[in-house]
């Protein structure tokens, strides 16, 4: 239904411009948004927008401040395509190489230019490629930095592939706190545990990780051990004293990784107090060698 509506708009706006001497901005933005639901006819519809007289460049640049971020990007994309089609062709033709683990990785000077970002985004959004390649495109996008980090939360909200969401979340290992707020708020509720764990991990890498202390404490009760472990580690890295009790409760976690990070976090928060923890003697006998070594080290004051 929506696709039909958009196609009708497309015909009205692009194919029969003579009927519309001065279309309002909204039909233009709707036509742009139509690309989101164009599916296999994306390229056809996009190219029609490119070659038509309307929307004009002025109309498109006016949309750079549009309230819908997707319209902003699509307007920028169409302008970019009109001015730098060769660059877009290079970006879309780039073949990934495989890193040593076998994950695709994009390299080349085409990806170092900030102006290439819009085309990388286009390929990520509309390229219809496998998740691993899309994740690599997302990683490249983040690497280019700039104000694109503000789009992470928006891209994250719309993204269906966990592998891509994970990469988008990792983009908040740095960056401004407000953007990170929205990214982590979404990511910590993600259905995929790897994404939730990445959120906990990324919080730890930030200098202002204590800002998400209570979220991490909640994550200590996550059903995934990977998430609990990363939450514990980040609470330790941010030395969040408020987390003492919740961390203490994780010392008998069924997952060794969680016990390890909880114990280390307690030691990072207050090593002397950690040395007095009653469970320490039991942890010295922990079946996981890393935990028993750490417990012994804390007892011995190392």
């Amino acid at each position: 239904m929506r696709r039909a509506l958009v196609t009708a708009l497309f015909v009205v706006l692009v194919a029969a411009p003579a009927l519309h001497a001065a279309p309002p901005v909204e039909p233009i933005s709707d036509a742009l948004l139509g690309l989101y639901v164009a599916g296999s006819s994306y390229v056809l519809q996009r190219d029609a927008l490119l070659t038509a007289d309307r929307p004009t460049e002025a109309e498109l640049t006016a949309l750079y401040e549009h309230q819908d971020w997707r319209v902003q990007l699509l307007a920028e994309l169409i302008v970019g395509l009109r001015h730098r089609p060769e660059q877009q062709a290079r970006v879309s033709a780039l073949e990934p190489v495989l890193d040593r683990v076998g994950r695709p990785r994009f390299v080349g000077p085409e990806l170092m230019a900030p102006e290439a970002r819009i085309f990388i985004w286009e390929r990520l959004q509309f390229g219809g490629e496998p998740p691993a390649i899309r994740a690599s495109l997302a990683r490249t996008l983040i690497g280019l930095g700039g104000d694109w980090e503000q789009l992470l939360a928006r891209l994250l909200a719309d993204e269906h592939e966990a592998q891509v969401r994970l990469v988008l979340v990792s983009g908040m290992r740095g960056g401004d706190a407000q953007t990170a707020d929205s990214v982590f708020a979404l990511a910590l509720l993600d259905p995929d545990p790897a994404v939730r764990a990445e959120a906990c991990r990324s919080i730890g890498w930030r200098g202002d990780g204590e800002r998400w202390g209570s979220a991490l404490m909640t994550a200590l009760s996550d059903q995934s051990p990977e998430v609990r472990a990363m939450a514990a580690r980040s609470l330790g890295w941010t030395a969040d004293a408020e987390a003492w009790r919740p961390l203490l409760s994780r010392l008998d976690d069924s997952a060794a990784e969680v016990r390890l990070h909880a114990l280390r976090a307690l030691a990072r928060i207050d090593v002397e107090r950690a040395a007095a923890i009653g469970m320490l003697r039991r942890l010295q006998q922990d079946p996981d060698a890393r935990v028993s070594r750490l417990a012994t080290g804390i007892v011995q004051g190392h």
Partner: protein
Amino acid sequence: MPLSANVWLAPALLVVLFLSGCLAPELAFTLPEDYAEGAGGEYPGLVGIPNLDDDNENGEVDWEEAALVEGENDLSSFTLSAALFRGLQRQQRIRMVLEGATSAIRVWRDGEVVLGKVEGGYIEAHSVAPFEDGEEEVLYRVEFEDFLVAGRLRLELHDGDEVLASDEIYVTAAPLILNHHLQQTEEVWLLELDAGPSYNNRQMVSAYEEVLGEVFTAIDGPSYDGDVWVQDEFQFGWTMAPGLRNDIVVDSIRDRSLDEYPEQELLRPDWVVRTWGDSSQVNSLDSFGNLEVSPPVTVDGVNYPFGRIYYGGAEFLHPDRQLTDFLASQRVQRPFEIDTTWLCVSHIDEVSSFVPDPSAPRGFRFVWADTRSAWSLLEGMEPSAPLGRYSLPFPGGHDLPDVAAFLNSQQLRFLNEEIQEDYLDPLLEQMKTELGLSDDEVVLMPALFEEPVGCLGLVAALIPGMANLFVSNRGDQTDVFLADPFMRESLSSAAGQDQDPFIADVTDRMPPHINFHFVDDWSMYHMALGEVHCGSNSTRTPAAHWWETAVHLLPEAP
């Protein structure tokens, strides 16, 4: 009978008895000159190599062929002498008997199988007929189907059902032995790729070419889709027996673009390409950067003259057990596993290596990654010192503009502290135990790790991993190729290496006789989670005779 007759009869009887003793059949296998007197009777006896190559290049493994093929040169031999039949009495017979792995051994005489595997079964006994035309000796050839196949060959002198005398030798096929870093280098490979200024290994290839000359081969990158991980796709080893050698390419189940390289470029007579494992179950630990061999060591009184195999893994994630079980079955390089599952790529070569050192107690040093050394070096540097390569954003670099960016990152310190405590320190202790290493045999290599995006919290080298090095030994000359750490402003390996404190420190820690080549592996290897060793491979010259030095490690005699 008159007394005089008895006087004559007694000496005549003595003469007959004496002569019949001299003329008794001489039951003996004659081994080639390479063997010591009596070696055949002691396990492993007459040794050979499994006939797994394709000497006539018809696409079929020679063992599988019905007849001996043209150019066949992988069989061991012994001879029987005409003395075998001297004094043989009419009712007596000579038989040769094969015991042990009878269906995996063949004994050939005049182009015919006389013992062992034949179509539809095997022959256990062979009647040795007197030689024709006054031949003084007859040549027998022994063929083996597989590694470490063993049996016993016995010559028996029969009189009816009674065995009057016998002689026995062992026949044993060589184990597969993998190369270690102290052996002489024969040929070296690196994949050459030039995809423009930001993605090429020109400098690295030039350095290999310049230093190694004609022993170096650059693999054409585009022909193999730019699969630069030459170490990971195949591992070189060999089988040997006196006068015999086959090079064995263990072809990984990794099966990426380089998969066909051994078959296309290396396979020829006396070369064998074999794969162990199920490629549908492949994981990163099946790559052969995760399969290494120590130099010769003695551990708890047991001498391993060909070193010990080691690889990364853990209970829940490990290399294909078909391969590791096979390697264990070869006995000579008794393998052990150490946990590398905390590394994103999980390869043991990311953190360890060996280099030769004539001044070391056992002629080598063990190189092991160490974060404390790296921090100590960084703390000695000017915090504002710019770091050209590190400052580049992904995918070009790590977005760390200067030394201060390392020093001021509490998180980076935490991460590396944890890696050191949880993994590097205990695993070093394990390596010391497994290989009987002393502290002074260990060189700690400055290293720092990061958590690359998408590695789910597993780590990879942040400073190009210099423990991941490649060793070339030619004569007395040792060249070590390792990653340029780029701990300086320069973006080029051609500039500033003499000002790089990490290079100075590493050179200082390592044996002085080594020629170091710090090569630019940054864009193509380091940023793709690998380093110099991952991209290199080599064949090496066998350094000892397993049948002389490793008998104590072999399986029980058959």
